[in-house]
């Protein structure tokens, strides 16, 4: 830890300061140092999307961003957005439609869905499918996920 860098960031509304090894990526930091295990690690090379979190209002891949790069940033995770109620409608639609099986991809899928809802609240079915293409799900056939998001956007 001799090269650790003091980093201060806001996570789900709470300011935290830690000395962080420069090589530590954001999702590992959230999971292992802060115990926020709702963000998952599926590939660590930026493909599967399971590590999606929100940094200063934009969704990012937590495995492609170093934790020290989040210095001064506002980071939000599935835990924070669940507690604030921001995801409540999406979560209910996912539950009603069984838009998850194992649930490993689900927190990130919800983050991506919320991002779409904010940026393109009238997205078509095709646009929903395209927007989710950076998030792999290996259990569902994606259809229930698309249905659930469509319910929220057009419901």
């Amino acid at each position, binding site marked *: 830890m001799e090269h650790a860098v003091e980093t201060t960031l806001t996570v789900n509304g709470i300011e935290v300061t830690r000395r962080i090894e420069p090589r530590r990526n954001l999702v590992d930091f959230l999971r292992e140092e802060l115990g926020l295990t709702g963000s998952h690690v599926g590939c660590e090379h930026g493909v599967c999307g399971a590590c999606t979190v929100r940094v200063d209002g934009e969704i990012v891949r937590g495995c492609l961003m170093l934790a020290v790069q989040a210095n001064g940033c506002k980071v939000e995770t599935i835990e924070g957005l669940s507690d604030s109620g921001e995801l409540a409608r999406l979560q209910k639609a*996912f539950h009603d439609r069984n838009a998850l*099986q194992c649930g490993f991809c689900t927190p990130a899928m919800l983050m991506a869905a919320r991002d779409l809802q904010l940026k393109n609240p009238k997205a078509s079915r095709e646009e929903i499918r395209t927007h*989710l*293409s950076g998030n792999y799900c*290996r259990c569902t056939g994606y259809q229930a996920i698309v249905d659930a998001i469509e319910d929220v956007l057009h419901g």
Partner: protein
Amino acid sequence: MGKAELPLHAPGTQLDKGYIGQSVPRANAQRLLQGRGSFTDDLIFPRLAHVAFFRSPYAHARVKRLDFKRALRSPGVIGVFDGRAVAEYCKPWMGVLAHLKGIRSPEQHAIAIERACWQGEAVAAVVAESRGQAEDAVGLIEADWEELPAVVDMDEALAGKVVIHPELGDNICFKREHDTGGVDEAFAKADVVVEETYNFGRHTGVCIEGRAILADYNAGEHSLTVYHATQAPHMMQDIFSRHLGIPEANVRVIAKDVGGSYGIKVHVYADEMATAALSVMLRRPVKFVADRLESFLSDIHAREHKVKVRLACTKEGEILAFDLDDLTAIGPYSVYPRTSGIEGNQVVNLTGGPYKHQKYRAKMNVVFTNKNVTCQYRAVGHPIAVALTEAIVDRAALELKMDPAELRRRNLIPDDAYPYTFPSGIKFEKLSHHRTLDKLLELMDYKSLRAQQADFRKKGVTRGIGLAAMIEVTNPSPAFYGVGGARISAQDGATLRFEPTGMVTVLCGVTEQGQGTEGIFAQIAASAVGVTVDKVRVITGDTGVTPYGGGTWASRGAGIGGEAVLLAGRALRSNILDVAAVVLKMDKAELDIVKNEVVNRLTLEAKLPLAELGRIAHFRPDTLPVDFQSELTVTRSYTPRQYAFTFSNGIQASYVEVDPETGFVKLLKHWCVEDAGTVINPMLVDEQIRGGVVQGIGAALYEECLYGPDGQLLNGNMADYLVPMSSEMPDIVCAHIETPTKQSQLGAKGVGEAGTAGAPGAVMNAINDALAPLGARVTAMPFTPERILVALRKI
């Protein structure tokens, strides 16, 4: 195209019929939706150590020297171990079963000793305070290797010029031949004989959660608790016990949330056994989570078949015989304890499965190669058997100039012919091929779709329609593994406990990896006992608390575990009514339980809330007659025994557009009509089918583990190994026929593998239907744009 119809919502609806058949959202999804699940990698323990493996960079090589000096000095390192050190704590194993006659495999160790037989086989382990530190130290291990000739190609393996395991004499793991007799005669008298060879690429499961295990050895009590992303906790308990020399009663395996499994997480993995052994050696908890690159190198792969098939039929389209020759390669070891012989065996069992021909001959060779091991992955053998059967049937239709749906109709086993023994020897209790076919054709509006296809053709748009009928192994009896000597339970038990508050707790040996097992058990228990579904809690995946059972594989969870829950629920209802009868001083026959209340059976008048009954039974039994003892915890078990397997059936269709300029396939729509007996929760069943279809589409279009001639995996990462994304997938329409099995009261057959079994064949036939007017045909999966362009002679 659009949203699936929103299904019925419980709780509360149609309670008189119970929850069976209703789309109840599952309670255990709530924590996952908030990121508050508990996956194995989420667990953190005091003194937790992490392991990383030093894996062979060569497909086949002797380890001449391993030098750990620098690794041992690396920060945070607790220990570095080679195969010999670990072997002192963990006995090797051999993946053979007695009922697969003649199957052979060499011994496999937790960490390879002296020789690595595939690129990615671990030859040393580093344990450190963090995974990062362990990986740093792995990079400091020095090794001298002597490269050995690698056998990569299946045909070369069969020819046996280079033998991987000299003690076995050749590269054959297992072979099987089957012959009804009369095959040559059938071919001789046939009007039409078609023959084709199909290739199926290797692919793998790509669970988004990598394999994960946290083993926690307690030296004080010589006990081992293993938190394991597994489908079969009791099987693993037995294996940890026997191979680590710890009494079985001292081993507890807990499967918390599991991030996808699909058969990947039901096998014994050397690196996981090593992790457990290292926990014993170091007397502290040790965790291993496979990262994505090592998942590609070490999660089981599957398929890789080359199959020549011939079909004989009359000019009226009556199929007379199938003749099959399957060659499949499994890597250097048969995987323990289920063996790697099952997939090929299934291809022999199932080829031609939906049809009524009587003559069948099959030959199958399973060979060793120096690639990663293969074993049972979702639908085991079915995707191969279905695709090659359905492709050759379509080939015959082409030859006969007959509509493919019509040719199938003429040959599907009649719905009134059951029970039925198929020429491969398997037995069907009751199937519904004709009803599923009719339903499918109606659902997809087959005639109009054909007309539409013809219109598009005139406009120069190349579209194709493909059908694939299928049979599927579900609810396996002990004939699958037990008879071969594997200590894998085909039976499952369920314990139901009536709590003082009127709640019901269900404990079952079947596990949950997202299929909705816990949700349907709650539905079954609630219906059987007479409570609302919110009154039920379900606990699975813990050998310390659940009844013994097989876990989740071979589409057995609902049919076997569900039946045990149903039987236990009925027994509990009866026991609750015994209590009610003494409390109310009424005849038990006059009473019933409806919506958490004991009621008068005839008038439905409320007599006693279950919460009050629970209070009396648990806290004031002194107020009951002295000779009365309540029994509010019951256990029941179930094993299917009348049939080796409870076959289900179904049929799928795919509608595609092929771009002859780019070779790209666009999936327009997909249909699946399935008969899985009693449907417990249509919403769960449908999305499980869709997920399976999408995995099957992955196999047909995108997924392949590509190896170079030296046995190096060329695309072992998520960027290069393609899996289906949401934008490429079609909407998938599901429908059901329900032919309940009579072997159980619930009547459920399995459904988890159906989608994967049939989709590749349907997509294959659709692509070839599209290509037919262009004089092209593809036979090697996955059907990449390149392969399609080659078939079109464009490149």
